[in-house]
């Protein structure tokens, strides 16, 4: 029998005891990167072709279900459960034994049924945490699944101008997209910490592969209060993107502090964020008076979260960034900063792990995190576009390690490799790019350069260090970079004494 025992209501922040100067709690909505929507088969994204042709027509990815037409019924997308479970596990949550949905009733033009199907009685994940780089644990009250409302287009551009408009335009393409809502405990104590939290979260989402960074959206509501006011809370709603969330937090903390300093008494309020003007403004929102009147959604049936499913999901979980960072610093002696950069991008981390099996890890770390990223950025390539793989990098780094080529030559090779892959080893041999290791040869060329540039030599002897660099540069040019700058430097200095 599908029976449910309702659990006690979840955390009410009003009962917490605060001591820090600033108290922040976040409610983050992440769009999940499934093919189809949460309760119907409409596509969550336009096709690549449509996007290229600029053709995401409003209301072109809708059906009777996500339009809330009478008689339509929702059916749950199994992929969403898998993605949400991964997120719950990555955030160290306790997992509910059953997935059940409720209706949250309120009236708003973006809500196709004037209720949102969400989780109220028993969220999928609860009592988790996320550890910040400082070591501080931010509590996760709950992680649950719900549907996205439609998108509203306000004539005039944004919500701040909306009241002067006579109507609103509604696009239901977004209606029904699956969301995970993540609610933190109010234990974030400043906007920088919030930024660190969000950075961490985005890396987790990236590793889990459940969020489309290019095309999907993260929105957040934030609760902010300051000690000075006696912790009277403002809720800033519906801020899009982590950058804006951070901006809004900085602004709001400042606004509250200024208000209190000027003698104002703060009240519990709900505010919107204007990204153009860079300020929060008071709103009369859909929720200020609403009684959501939660009932179970009886068009849906309970889904068992079985041990088998959990085992399968755990098995599919990738090693997350934190574990990798620890591994790189402990096992390979990589610096924490380098390890963090490597771990930030999953494909980069995986590349590093493969390469460092064959080549000195420190060398690999330096070359991947600096050189590779540099040439990729120059060529506007992302890790999805990368044409080379670990075999190319291993070959290249091996040549450096064995001092067959100089780092200078290696850099130029990498610049070419990134555009069109080839075998570095074969190329070096063919082109005769081997490092000049014969010091006599270097000495000969140095003498040539000295002879060709008497005025520069005079400048150096007068004390101008820059002239030395010029002379070394000339040697490098003549040797086509095959000489090691360090050795040229030593020999040149010796000759010029």
């Amino acid at each position, binding site marked *: 029998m599908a*029976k449910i025992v*309702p659990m006690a209501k979840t955390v009410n922040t009003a009962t917490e005891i605060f001591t820090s100067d600033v108290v922040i709690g976040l409610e983050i909505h992440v769009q999940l990167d499934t093919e189809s929507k949460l309760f119907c088969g409409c596509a969550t994204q336009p096709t690549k072709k449509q996007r290229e042709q600029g053709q995401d027509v409003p209301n072109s990815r809708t059906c*009777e279900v996500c*339009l*809330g*037409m*009478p*008689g*339509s*019924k*929702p*059916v*749950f997308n199994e992929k969403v459960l898998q993605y949400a479970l991964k997120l719950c596990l990555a955030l160290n949550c306790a997992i509910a034994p059953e997935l059940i949905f409720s*209706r949250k*009733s309120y*009236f*708003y*033009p973006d809500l*196709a*049924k*004037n*209720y949102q199907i969400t989780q109220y009685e028993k969220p999928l994940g609860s009592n988790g945490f996320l550890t910040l780089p400082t070591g501080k644990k931010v509590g996760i009250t709950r992680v649950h699944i719900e549907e996205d409302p439609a998108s509203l287009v306000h004539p005039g551009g944004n919500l701040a101008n909306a009241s002067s408009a*006579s*109507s*609103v335009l*509604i696009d239901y393409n977004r209606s029904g997209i699956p969301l995970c809502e993540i609610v933190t405990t109010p234990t974030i104590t400043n906007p920088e910490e919030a930024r660190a939290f969000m950075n961490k979260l985005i890396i987790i989402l990236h590793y889990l592969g459940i969020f489309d960074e290019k095309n999907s959206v993260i929105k957040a509501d934030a609760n902010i209060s300051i000690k000075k006011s006696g912790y009277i809370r403002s809720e800033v709603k519906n801020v899009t993107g982590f950058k804006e969330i951070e901006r809004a937090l900085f602004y709001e903390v400042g606004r509250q502090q200024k208000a209190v300093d000027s003698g104002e008494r703060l009240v519990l309020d709900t505010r919107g964020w204007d990204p153009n003007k860079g300020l929060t403004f008071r709103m009369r929102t859909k929720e200020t008076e609403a*009684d*959501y*009147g*939660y*009932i*179970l*959604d*009886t*068009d*849906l*049936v309970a889904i068992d979260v079985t041990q088998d499913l959990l085992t399968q999901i755990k098995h599919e979980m990738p090693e997350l960034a934190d574990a990798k960072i620890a591994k790189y610093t402990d096992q390979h002696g990589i610096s924490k900063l380098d390890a963090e950069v490597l771990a930030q991008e999953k494909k980069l981390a995986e590349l590093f792990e493969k390469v460092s099996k064959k080549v000195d890890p420190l060398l690999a770390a330096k070359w991947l995190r600096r050189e590779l990223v540099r040439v990729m950025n120059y060529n506007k390539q992302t890790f999805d576009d990368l044409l080379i793989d670990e075999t190319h990098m291993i070959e290249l780094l091996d040549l450096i390690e064995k001092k067959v080529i100089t780092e200078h030559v290696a850099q130029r090779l990498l610049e070419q490799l990134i555009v069109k892959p080839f075998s570095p080893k074969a190329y070096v041999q063919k082109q005769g790019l081997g490092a000049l290791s014969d010091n006599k040869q270097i000495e000969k060329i140095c003498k040539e350069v000295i002879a060709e540039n008497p005025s520069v030599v005079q400048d150096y002897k007068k004390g101008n260090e820059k002239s030395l660099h010029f002379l070394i540069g000339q040697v490098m040019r003549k040797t086509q970079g095959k000489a090691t700058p360090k050795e040229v430097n030593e020999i040149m200095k010796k000759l010029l004494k």
Partner: protein
Amino acid sequence: MADALSIIALKQKLLTGELDVVEHTEMILQEAEKLNPSYHYFNVISSNLARVQAQELRREIQTALKLKDKKKLQVLQQKKLLGIPISVKDAICVKGVESTAGSRILKGYLPPFNATVISRSVNEGGIIIGKTSQDEFGFGGFNVNVGLGYQVPKNPFDKNRTTGGSSGGGSGFTQLTKYTHVSLTESTGGSIVEPAAFCGVVGLCPTYGRVSRYGLMDFANSLDKIGATGKTTADVAVLLQSIAGFDQKNATTADVPVEDYSSFVGKPIKGLKIGVVSVAFGDGTDSFVAERVWKGIKSLESQGASYEEVNLDLPITMGVPTYYLIATSEASTNLAKYCGLRYGKHEPLEGSFNEYFTQVRSKNLGEEAKRRIMLGTFARMAGYRDACYLQALKVRTKMIEEYKKLFTKYDVLMTPTAPIVAPKFDEIAKLTPLQHYMIDIFTVGPNIAGLPHISVPVGKQNGMPVGALAIADHFKESTLIKLGGALEKTCGAGQCACD
């Protein structure tokens, strides 16, 4: 009623060429048009659709007959509802046909999709002749709570009396039509069997989850069931079999095999154990109703069934309030979508969204709809939710347990379908809303518990039909079909209503 051929009989005549499907369809359409001004059974008579369907079917039959295409004829033979006219309760969506659930707030709405029961019926050769009258969104037991601008349907035996509700139009027409016909009806608290009893026809409400609700405009999602109404149990069995079964589009359909319901008509009921709910035959039930139903039970006994009197507690004492608390809570959320956006009745886009929504809803919803929306909104408001909505859900569990205990000993439970025959309109007008709700006293129990139940005519009193209600355990529709057929043996299939 004796003129109308059964589904099976009509099908045979169509396949031999003795009767023409286009002609038959035309005749029933004309009859519907003729009856409607005085009886108001139809909100829409879908002549265009029906004619197109009939033409297509005739073409197939004639081609197969001309070419003596045995294979094709066999395929046609397999179609359970070949050429059968079907009327559809207005809340069930028919693509391209105005569907309003009897409410002005959906006036003009043309669904862009078919309900699953419609596609299944049409696949079986059925012909959709129209959308039948109902209480607005199913809110009523007398079909008097029709939406603003709609007409109240009249009882086929007495125009001063109600058809019963909320599937009033379908039940009334099923009685009056001279032609082969079945009706797709719907029940939340008793709206299939009660009008069936008041109109002297057979109504079967299946187990919750037996038939897909996809395309049914929701009243209460954990209580709504689509079922079948017909002149005989045999006809009802055919329709039920055509529509029952798991549906991918509706997660609350059960993955339980569909039996060959037709084969149970005429099966002997020897050994059938009947639990007669004695409290339903005492105070509060009119004596002649009780008498008629007892006669029916006795006739079953004479065919080999046995009965004992049983006690039914919570479903009778707590049925109505439990039902209304759950049903209105769900209904108030289901009706929130009707606000003048995307479909239905529009108003000029003036004011803020709250003002606009309020205006559209207040102007276009009838009083009973408003009352139930408000009751439901109240029952799930923070502070009242525990005592009302959540408590009702728990009482539901206890009711089901009570029924299950009885079904370990009995195959069916029986009561009168309603404590009275169809009342007069002027009597109904004197009732308070609470008294309206009480008409459901015997039917709310099986509806809350999702149990299948059937109403079969068992005679008349002063020209007004009386119905006997039989309730079986979950997914035991076949037992009800057996019982219906057995009752008809003594009353004569389809004859009782003509006494």
